[in-house]
């Protein structure tokens, strides 16, 4: 086998127009993305959105219906899986049941004729703190231990690209945090390219350099975790990555810097650069922790949006913050996260409050939440524009 294939460092991955159809079902609709060499890339999305299928396409275990896959600039679309410098940590672990843990980890090294496979396998097991169990069979390990063996079995090969399919799903919280740090340090130490699939948004945001949010076989948004969190472009992203308050709004004025829209009779501004659309009916959003609760109507100040009055319907304490639900006539239920700067809630249920936030914290979406009347209006609009 071509030994030169296995780079000392990571390779960049490029997917060009990838589409994957199964009989009667399209798992991946249209995928174009570039993962730069040596980065930690997280693919985030709900169950069934096509994450595993995407990884299988990259590993070569599945053939795309159309599109190309490039690794380090080389087209590997027609390369067999065992010739791709790619390894996978499978969601099902897929450990070899007839081999010991050590032999499992040494498998890839042996296939490539690498020197001292057992020694290298042992040090990989030490990395995941399983060297004491090297002589056991996989069936004698717990789910979390099996997962770490699967991780060691892939990492030990130092592939140019490592694919991780929800590799920490079976671990308890403490070990999971520890493994997240471990993974991150392995990645930066060896400079490999990691594509990490998860449905845990917190995991994606803490570990990844770049996050891609996937929904129904498409990528909805790619960017750094801060970017995607602070400026979601679609309703799906706004609510999958954290929570958002979304309001239907009708654009009244579109200036150079800001767009002014009507939300339940209030004039709400959003920076033009943060609005995906600037005319017609749009959806405006703001994160719950960006909202301020006021017990009196504030005097209008430039650069501050105000919504209200609304009635507090629920207060729930969650340690570092308190969550308030506020019913604002015409705008629906608004969630507010307030830091617990004082003991006890600031207001009680039933109180009348006003909500304010800085204009630059708002965002305007390209679509509307699914199933809402607003979305139907939106689809009519966008559909008309596209045809």
């Amino acid at each position, binding site marked *: 086998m071509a030994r030169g294939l296995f780079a000392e460092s990571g390779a960049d991955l490029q997917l060009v127009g990838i589409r994957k159809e199964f009989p009667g079902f399209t798992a991946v609709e249209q995928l174009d993305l570039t993962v730069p060499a040596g980065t930690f890339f997280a693919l985030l999305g709900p169950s069934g959105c096509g994450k595993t299928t995407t990884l299988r396409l990259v*590993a070569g*275990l599945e053939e795309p219906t159309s599109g190309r896959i490039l690794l380090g600039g080389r087209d590997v679309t027609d390369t*067999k*899986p*065992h010739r791709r410098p790619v390894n996978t940590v499978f969601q099902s672990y897929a450990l070899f*049941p007839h081999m010991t843990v050590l032999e499992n980890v040494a*498998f890839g090294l042996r296939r490539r004729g690498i020197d001292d496979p057992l020694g290298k396998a042992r040090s990989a097991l030490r990395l995941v703190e399983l060297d004491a169990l090297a002589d056991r069979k996989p069936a004698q390990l717990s789910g979390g231990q099996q997962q770490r063996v699967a991780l060691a079995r892939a990492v030990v090969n130092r592939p140019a690209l490592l694919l991780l399919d929800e590799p920490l799903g079976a671990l308890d919280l403490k070990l999971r945090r520890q493994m997240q740090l471990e993974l991150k340090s392995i990645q930066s130490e060896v400079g490999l390219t990691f594509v990490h699939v998860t449905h845990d948004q917190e995991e994606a945001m803490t570990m990844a350099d770049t996050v891609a949010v996937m929904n129904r076989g498409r990528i909805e948004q790619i960017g750094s975790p801060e970017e995607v969190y602070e400026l979601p472009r679609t309703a799906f992203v706004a609510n999958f990555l954290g929570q958002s308050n979304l309001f239907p709004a009708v654009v009244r004025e579109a200036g150079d810097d800001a767009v002014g829209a009507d939300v339940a009779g209030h004039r709400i501004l959003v920076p033009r650069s943060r609005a995906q659309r600037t005319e017609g009916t749009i959806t405006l959003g703001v994160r719950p922790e960006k909202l301020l609760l006021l017990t009196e109507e504030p005097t209008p100040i430039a650069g501050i949006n105000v919504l209200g009055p609304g009635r507090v319907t629920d207060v729930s304490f969650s340690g570092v913050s308190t969550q308030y639900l506020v019913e604002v006539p015409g705008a629906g239920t608004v969630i507010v996260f307030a830091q617990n700067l004082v003991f006890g809630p600031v207001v009680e249920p039933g109180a009348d409050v006003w909500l304010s936030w800085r204009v630059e914290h708002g965002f305007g979406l390209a679509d509307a939440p699914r199933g809402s009347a607003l979305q139907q209006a939106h689809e009519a609009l966008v559909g008309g524009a596209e045809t």
Partner: protein
Amino acid sequence: MALPAFAGASAPATGRGGAARRSGRVALLLLLPGIAYLLLFFLAPLLSLVMTSLQSPSETVFGQYDFTFNWANYLQVVGQYGEQIGRSFLYALLATVFALLFSYPLAYFLGVNLRGRPILQSLLLVLVVAPFFISFLLRTAAWKQILSDEGLVVSTLKALALLGPQDHLTGTPIAVVFGLTYNFIPFMCLPLFTTLERLDLRVVEAGRDLYGGPFTTFRTVTLPLSMPGIVSGTLLTFIPAAGDYVNASSQFLGGTSSTMVGNVIQSNFLVQLNYPAAAALSILLMATILVIVGVYVRRSGTEDLL
């Protein structure tokens, strides 16, 4: 406070112990018919066979045998029939290997490639088992016809000059091994199928992902994972094939140069009426198979099957 706690703790313990003893008695009771059956129909005949194998001809009544601890019977049958004994194991081994080579791809196709198509899978499985609906003797007799000197197979082989003008197929070792292979293919195929049907393909994919080419992955992953099926299939073929006396019989596919130990036992028991020799041969056959199987299972690492 402590006392009730102790009492509470000890009460269920005695209860559990009693339950265990009770369930042990029930298990014994349920096993009783099976144990009785084994004693009556397996152990007793076996003992009787061992006794018979140690008899020698009566000095007073012709055709009668007396029990005399005549161990020489064993030496005598080995000297007299060593060739047939060796041949039996050779033929059984060949038939097992051929049946395995034929059945593995078939079972793989049925169990792996047809996974998503249960109807086609069941249909083809029925075809594998279908020969059982016709008597084993009839099928072997049919092969005697097919392979006869007047048959299509021989005339074709002669036309292709693969067979000389004076050659035959029936009565040769080739026909006997062929018959054995043919007759035991279902016994090989079914255990292989049940193992391959449950083969976890995700593990095979992991092998390919870890730089195993198709052949290497087969050798290092698929084949070891099919061992339970291979071991049970080969045992189910080898054991009966080694003792078979139908295929090698001259009434079917065999001849004088292909006689197996089964034929010798049959002729000693039923024709020559030399019961001690027949019994000694049977015991030898059984013991040899037991040793071979023991070593084989140990070597293949599938002891848990036994």
